[in-house]
């Protein structure tokens, strides 16, 4: 880093932080889904990234459909594509919970394997039914620009939009959890499954919906993903490890931790990527995470009680 002046480094850090914003949103949304599933069902979903891919395929295919059939609509389709991505991922997630996950509650190590198998199957489905080639969405002009905050600092619009949407989504989710019947049922099931069942609440249904929502969120992350890179059947593999690490660094049971560590890791990774090649940046990112976890083995934000 010796060749940069202080001002340049400052500008680089600021700029890279903003270009890291999109990544942060994806990390946080992915982590959020994993957090919900693990918290309620003790299941680790290795196929979670495939739901991200599902979301981005939905976005890409919808974009293709719109540009081919309804060109007038081109500038606004994004607004509909996001709920659509959620819906598709929700639906698939709902079915997956029904037929697979519901048999695996509280056998976390086994779910790792079973959902890995699921992810292989889903990837092969993408390959067989959509095609192995990379695909990207035609994004509207207004999303692609950037905003020059100062002489050397350029901030991409898409990052800001994603940030805004992510915040909305999280607020919405919080409201859903505390204000709606379904949300309260979800909370009750997380806290005490037997008791909730005994009160006549259909915990199976609750679980299916919860799992669906978690998958739907990663579907949205997938829609966001199209602003960063093109989609391919195995595009998810790069994200699953990172999303888990976000969750683990955050403390596995802490939402605040999840946001902080999502931000921290996205920032770190985009700054590192500026100074070195992608692979070496990844190595350093992981090493930093390993060392942080060696010191804080329960994550950055964990309750101090030994379970």
């Amino acid at each position, binding site marked *: 880093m010796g060749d940069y002046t202080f001002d340049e480094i400052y500008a680089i850090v600021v700029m890279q932080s903003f270009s890291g914003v999109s990544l942060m949103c994806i990390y946080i949304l992915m982590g959020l889904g994993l957090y919900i599933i693990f918290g309620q069902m003790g299941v680790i979903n290795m196929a979670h990234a495939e739901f991200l891919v599902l979301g981005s395929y939905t976005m890409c295919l919808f974009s293709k459909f719109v540009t081919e059939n309804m060109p007038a609509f081109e500038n606004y389709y994004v607004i509909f594509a996001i709920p659509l991505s959620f819906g598709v991922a929700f639906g698939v997630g709902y079915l997956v919970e029904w037929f697979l996950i519901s048999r695996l509650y509280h056998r976390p190590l086994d779910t790792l394997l079973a959902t890995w198998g699921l992810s292989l199957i889903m990837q092969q489905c993408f390959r067989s039914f959509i095609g192995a080639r990379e695909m990207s969405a035609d994004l509207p002009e207004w999303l692609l620009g950037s905003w020059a905050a100062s002489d050397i600092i350029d901030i991409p619009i898409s990052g800001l939009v994603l940030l805004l949407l992510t915040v909305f989504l999280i607020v919405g989710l919080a409201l859903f959890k505390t204000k709606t019947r379904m949300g309260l049922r979800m909370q009750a099931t997380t806290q005490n499954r037997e008791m909730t069942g005994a009160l006549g609440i259909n915990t199976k249904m609750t679980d299916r919906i919860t799992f669906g929502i978690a998958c739907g969120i990663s579907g949205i992350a997938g829609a966001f993903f199209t602003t960063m890179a093109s989609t391919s059947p195995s595009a998810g593999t790069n994200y699953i490890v990172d999303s888990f690490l976000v969750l683990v660094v955050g403390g596995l049971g802490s939402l605040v931790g999840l946001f902080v560590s999502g931000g921290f890791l996205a920032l770190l990774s985009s700054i590192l990527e500026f100074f070195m090649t992608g692979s070496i940046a990844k190595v350093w990112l992981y090493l930093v995470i390993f060392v942080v976890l060696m010191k804080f083995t329960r994550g950055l934000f964990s*309750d*101090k*009680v*030994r379970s």
Partner: protein
Amino acid sequence: MPSNTDYLLAIEDLTVSFDGFKAVDELTLYVDKGELRVIIGPNGAGKTTVLDLISGKTRASSGSIRYNNVELTSMREHEIVRAGIGRKFQTPSIYEKLSVYENLEISYPWGRTVFGSLKFTRTKQVIDRIQDVAQQIFLSDMLETQAELLSHGQKQWLEIGMLLVQNPELIMLDEPVAGMTAKEREATAALLEKIAKERSIIIIEHDMDFVAKIADQVTVLHLGKILKQGSMDEVRDDPVVQEVYLGH
């Protein structure tokens, strides 16, 4: 630094809070050498938590626990065990896949390091000790049985036996007669009386008749605090205790 005491176990101002909820609150409790102490109290009083704190399973928020004048609060579980404290869990905790003999053998107090356990052999001494304990816990003709096939009461005994093999100076038992038949309870009472001759015991128990049979001193815990301490009769006659506990 608190001054030295003659007590075997001296708990002073012990507090633990879970997310602001004080499960044990400024608790002070002394246990003499050779004493059999019973702790009673309604569900959620913090009895199990006290054992967790002594045995190192939960870390105290503040206060001190000294055992033979050694501070336990900063020691790890296995160090506390090696200092001479044994503990039985509320739900029987045994190794289902292993035989009764193997269950007892794992508790045998040597060869507990990695290389020690690689070198561990079944000497005559080990076998004699285990057969002796098996005799005491009424399981001597079931040594080869797989532990998951035992009855609930027998599992409780087996766990007590695992403590005896360890030969600790202080034994802590969390509801040892839960799930036992009347006959098994009687046998257990006799067993505990016999064990108590050689060491100190802390028992948590619900069953009043059982407590009356064995206790020297009874401590009543309520909301993490000591409500009353004394002989069984004193405790039973106390109106406050009756209200929170016996009245239930």
